Every structure is written in structure tokens, then in C-alpha cells.
């Protein structure tokens, strides 16, 4: 049975079903109870499951994660919410030095089946700290699984898998897509490591995740008009990456564009490109391209559309991989780089 849900409602449904199905599942975060979250993602859950299982917490991210760790020792599966991407950093130590390491440190004796939900990404016209994409920090951290979703179905199924997993999972929710609707079949089960090929093509591969998957699909449609076949891969898992699927695709297309909203430097796209180069170097017919946020802090949202990956920037990158005329064809770096040298 399928139903039409927004991505936000799909998350809500996954949380409700997890709470319903396992009484060791708990929700904890700021404003998630009475208010139902600033995006209403947890709407109705406290009323339905009680304030003991859907906990409005004090305003302290390190403590949200730190106390959830303590609860995990007692066998709870805590789903914590960090209200916005930009507010996860106070919890960084508890996430990278504790959550990520407790299984390792205890040689498998302590499980941290914690899920950390983080609405992330931009294009929502908001103010500072509300539009960031911090996933690369966590991708660099061994011991964490980092996943995201591009559709309501993926949100539902991936979040269920995250909560069921005995590994700690950061579940990044593309907040700019919260109100996107789609069909959801609650019986579809997904894992935490496999990428989806969401459009097939033989000329260029675009690997995307979360909010950029839709843009990539639009790029595939636009490119098709010019006779270019774009294969689009929804990575789903940001760490570990499903490099196999991307390599298999690149072996066919010979060309790769990786896109995400996060800055490029030492990021998920750096990793994916390097991994593909390591394993499919001889298949590559052009250097892989990145279409990402620039290496600046997230700008004022008045100009965020210049900062974020866009359809046109993706198409331009596709053109670059194909050696077609593109925005950099006549770019003379030497002449424009006065300031930096």
C-alpha cells in the first residue's frame, strides 16, 4: 500500500512506526514535543507516545548526544534531533570522540544504536547557520554512518533502517525538500550502504545526494534534449560511499560529475572522485568535475542561488566532461588571479 506524503511527513511516519514497533525507541531534542519541531516533522508524536518517549530537551546539543549515549548503555535506541545543521557543532566532541568510537573502544561490547537527525542544506532563504551542509565532517569520522534521502520514500525507508541499525547513524534531512511530495510504501526496506541509479545513461554519470538529486535529474532531462545521456546516481549513503556502483557506472560513461551543497575542500566529493580515480582511472575519459558550494562560509541567502549547485552549473560541468564549449573554455586563470598573488 502506498500513500502520498511530503518528505517531512514521511520522516514523521518513520518515527511514528519506529516508536510504535519498539518501545526502546525514544525521541529527544529541542522543541520536538509540544511544538512538533520547528518544521513540524515530529508533529503529533508527543501527544501520541507521551512526553517520556518524545522528550523536549534543554537547550544543549552536547548534552542531547551525551545523555543519549548513556541511554544507549541501557538499551534504548535514541533518535535525537539537532534543530538545524549549523547547531551540531557544540555536540561535535560527543559525536566524533564518543558515539563514533564506543564500539571500537569497547571492542564490540558497547553498541551505540543512536540516530542523529539533522535537517540540512540551503535554498530556504533563511539567516546564518540555518542552511549548512556539515556532512563531510562526519564522513571523515570513522565509526559513523552518514546517510541522507532525496525523496519521501527514501526518507521513510532509510530512517527506519537507521533506527534499526546497531551502528550510530547521522541522518541528514534535506530541509529544502521537506514539502516535496511523493509516494511512500512503508513496506520497502532499504539498507544503509547502497546507492540507487535513478536515471540511466551512457554519456556522463552524475553522482548526487539529498537535495541535489532532483537538480541532477533535471540536468539529465535537459541534457537529453541535446542528445546527451546522463546517468544519475543517488548516493544515499554519504559514508561509507557505495563506490562500487559509481565505478560500475563510470566504467560505462567514462565521465563523472559529483554534486553536493557542501563546500568542496576535503569533502564528500573529493572523496568520491579520489576513490573513483583510484579504481576506474583507465575508464575515465575526462577529469571528474565537482559542482558544490564554494569554499566560503554559507553566504547571505540573498545570494545563495549563486552559491548552490544549480541546473545550469551542472549542465556546464557535464559540458566540461564532454569537452563541449563551457564557461571555462576561454577562462584565463593567470590574468584574473591578481589578488591572490
Amino acid at each position, binding site marked *: 500500500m502506498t500513500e502520498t506524503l511530503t518528505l517531512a511527513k514521511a520522516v514523521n511516519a518513520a518515527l511514528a512506526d519506529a516508536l510504535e514497533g519498539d518501545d526502546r525507541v525514544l525521541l529527544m531534542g*529541542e*522543541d520536538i*514535543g*509540544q*511544538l*512538533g519541531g*520547528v518544521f513540524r516533522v515530529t508533529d503529533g508524536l508527543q501527544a501520541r507516545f507521551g512526553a517520556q518517549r518524545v522528550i*523536549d*530537551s*534543554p*537547550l*544543549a546539543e*552536547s*548534552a542531547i548526544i551525551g545523555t543519549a549515549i548513556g541511554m544507549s548503555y541501557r538499551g534504548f535506541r535514541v533518535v535525537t534531533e539537532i534543530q538545524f545543521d*549549523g*547547531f551540531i*557543532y*557544540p555536540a561535535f566532541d560527543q559525536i566524533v570522540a564518543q558515539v563514533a568510537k564506543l564500539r571500537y573502544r569497547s571492542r564490540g561490547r558497547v553498541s551505540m544504536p543512536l540516530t542523529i537527525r539533522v535537517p540540512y542544506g540551503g535554498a530556504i*532563504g*533563511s*539567516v*546564518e*547557520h*540555518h542552511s549548512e551542509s556539515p556532512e563531510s565532517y562526519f564522513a571523515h569520522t570513522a565509526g559513523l554512518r552518514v546517510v541522507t534521502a532525496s525523496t519521501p520514500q527514501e526518507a521513510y525507508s532509510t530512517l527506519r533502517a537507521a533506527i534499526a541499525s546497531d551502528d550510530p547513524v547521522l541522518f541528514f534531512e534535506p530541509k529544502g525538500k521537506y514539502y516535496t511530495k511523493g509516494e511512500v510504501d512503508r513496506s520497502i526496506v532499504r539498507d544503509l550502504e547502497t546507492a540507487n541509479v535513478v536515471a540511466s545513461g551512457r554519456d556522463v554519470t552524475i553522482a548526487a545526494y539529498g537535495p541535489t538529486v532532483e537538480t541532477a535529474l533535471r540536468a539529465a532531462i535537459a541534457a537529453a534534449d541535446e542528445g546527451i545521456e546522463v546517468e544519475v546516481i543517488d548516493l544515499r549513503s554519504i559514508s561509507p560511499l557505495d563506490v562500487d556502483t559509481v565505478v560500475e557506472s563510470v566504467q560505462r560513461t567514462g565521465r563523472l560529475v559529483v554534486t553536493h551543497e557542501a563546500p568542496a*575542500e576535503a569533502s564528500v566529493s573529493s572523496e568520491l572522485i579520489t576513490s573513483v580515480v583510484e579504481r576506474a582511472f583507465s575508464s575515465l575519459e575526462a577529469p571528474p568535475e565537482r559542482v558544490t558550494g*564554494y*569554499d*566560503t*562560509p554559507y*553566504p*547571505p*541567502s*540573498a*545570494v545563495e542561488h*549563486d*552559491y548552490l549547485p544549480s541546473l*545550469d*552549473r551542472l549542465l*556546464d560541468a557535464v559540458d566540461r566532461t564532454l569537452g563541449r564549449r*563551457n*564557461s*571555462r573554455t*576561454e*577562462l584565463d*586563470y593567470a590574468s*584574473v*588571479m591578481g*589578488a*591572490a*598573488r
Partner: protein
Amino acid sequence: MSITVPAPDPALAAGLDCPLRVLDLDGTRLHDPLLDAHLGDIDESALADLYLDMVRVRRLDTEAFALTRQGHLVLWPPLLGQEAAQVGAARSLEQRDWVFGSYREHGFALLRGADMAEFARIWKAYAHGGWDPHEINMAPSQIIIGAQSLHGVGYAMAAKMDGSDEVALTAFGDGATSEGDVNEALVWASAFQAPVVFLCQNNQYAISEPVAVQSGGLPLALRPTGFGIPSMRVDGNDVLAMLAAGRIAVERARAGGGPTFIEAVTYRRGPHTTTDDPKRYRDEAEVEAWVAKDPIDRVERALERMGVDMDPVRAEAKVRADRLAKEFRAAAEHAEPPAAEEIFDNVYAQPSRRLERQRAEHLAFVASLAEESK
């Protein structure tokens, strides 16, 4: 092994049972020995000035709120109801002191002289920062809850190292008291006896969460006492009490007496921000009860009791508030959006080659789009 704890001076944890107040709801001037000593100079004209300040702050706030509803600003965190807390505290400082506040400190920004045209740009999402911090001695507004408290303490430590008698004030909300940073700020302020004033505006909510979620129902002003920091719990809707408490704290800091914590007990009558729906978590009746404690009405009544003819005062307040509103509206409506290229500015003092490449690529990309659409 015995350590002697300083005798609990009532002035060191004042108002815990009942917040300090010197202006009653009906404008009666109440007497409080602690606060009165710092209000000797407040005559009708000084009180009228505070009235003017509050009216202007409120007008800025309501104008900005309306501008947001009309689509000219992207977001606004209203301070309606907190005018006395901010004006009283702000007026206890000198201009050479520094303020480190949150996103709701519009009153401080206005009174310290922030350029309204620049200020409006923050809430249009045209800029992250809205004034020159070194011009008005106020750090950019802070969205990360509590982070600024450490900056305030650090600034105060630095002022002390310089042998200056300048003071830092850091403002934050009730919710912020749960963050590690605010508590570390208390540790450091106490350890270094930093000349800092902690202003906690307890407006009863952190978004939807009533303050009891943070504190388990205890007064927030109790907290600093455990760090050895003197504390006052003040009626935050009483501008005179706030002024006096601020002065006590500032004078203590200037004189080398270290930090003070002020809990301003007040209320956020509006939504958390323009995107919030407070009906989901509180009753209209609760709001009404706080309307009756309005900080501006109270001063009007006090001035009347003092025999001041309010008509010219109100008229003057209206003129000045209107002027401010007009100025702010014009700023909001006509602000120049940033050029997209500004994305690449001010990341480093010394530009990096990496970023200059990205700038060049971006400009080439924009040019290519323009080309295509020709």
C-alpha cells in the same frame, strides 16, 4: 583544609524570592534599598528619556515585524515585551563599553547607534552582519545560542589586562543557560574576576519550551551563585530596576569587583520569530497577563504620577518613533542586494589562490549564462 565561603551578602543574590522592582504596575515608585542607591539622578526628564527609548525600540520592532509580514524582511525575532530589559541595561553602559548579544538584541543595537540601513540588511538576508562592531562597540548579533557569552568574558579579560575600566555586557536568553558555553563563561568570569555583566533575559520561553524545561523550575539567578558570581533577579519589565541593576553590575565591574549576573524576568509577547506559531504551545491568557505588565505603560503611569504632562512627551515620542520607522522601512524596502561576487569576499584577510580561482570560475560561469540568454 577549611575554606571559608564569603558570607551570603543579600546583595549578592538579590531577588531570588521575588524579582527586584521599583516601579509598580500602576506606576507607583516602590522603594528598594539596593536599587534606589543607584537611581538618585533619575528625575522626570531622565525617566522620560527612558520612555522615549522604549517607545522607539518598540516601534522599530513592530515596524520590522510588519515589514516581514509584508515580505520585505525574511525573518524577524520580535522583542515585544522586552523593551525595558534591554533599554534599562543598555543605558547602564557607557558607549566605550562593549556588548555581545544574541539575535534579539535590537534594543541594544538601536541605542548604541547601529546604522539602520545596515541593520535592515541582516533581516533581508542581504548580510550576516549589520553594523560596524568597532564603531558602536557591539559584536555582530549571534545566532549560535550562548557562544557570545565567552566572547564577552574574553573581551572583559582583555580590558582588564589593558588596565582599562571598560566593561563588557553579554546578553542571552533563558534557554542559553543550558549550553556549556554559558556555563564555561561563568567559570572563567569567576576565575579571572572579569569585568563582565551577564544579562539573561528570561522571556519565559526558548522557542516553544517554557523555562522550566531548562531549570526544573528554579530561578535562573540561582545558577551564578554556585560559581561565586553575585546575582540579581530583576523585574525585567521595570526599566528603572533594570537600569539600577545594570549600574550596580557595571560599577562593580569597573571598580575591579568582577562579574555580575542579572536575570531579567520578562516575557516574549510575540512569536519566537515571524515563522513561529506560539499558539501551539501557550495560551492567549498567559500573554494577556503579561500585557498588563507592559513596560512602557508602566513608565507612562509613573511619569503621570510625577505630574508630568504626557501629551508633549507622547507627541515627541511619536515623532521620533515615526521618523525611525520611516528610516527603517526605507532601508528595508530600498536596500541594495549584495552582488553575488561578494560570496568570495572577506573569507580571508589575505586572499587565497584557491578561492580566487573559484571566484574567476564563478564569474566566467555567470558571464556564460548572460551570453547564452542573449
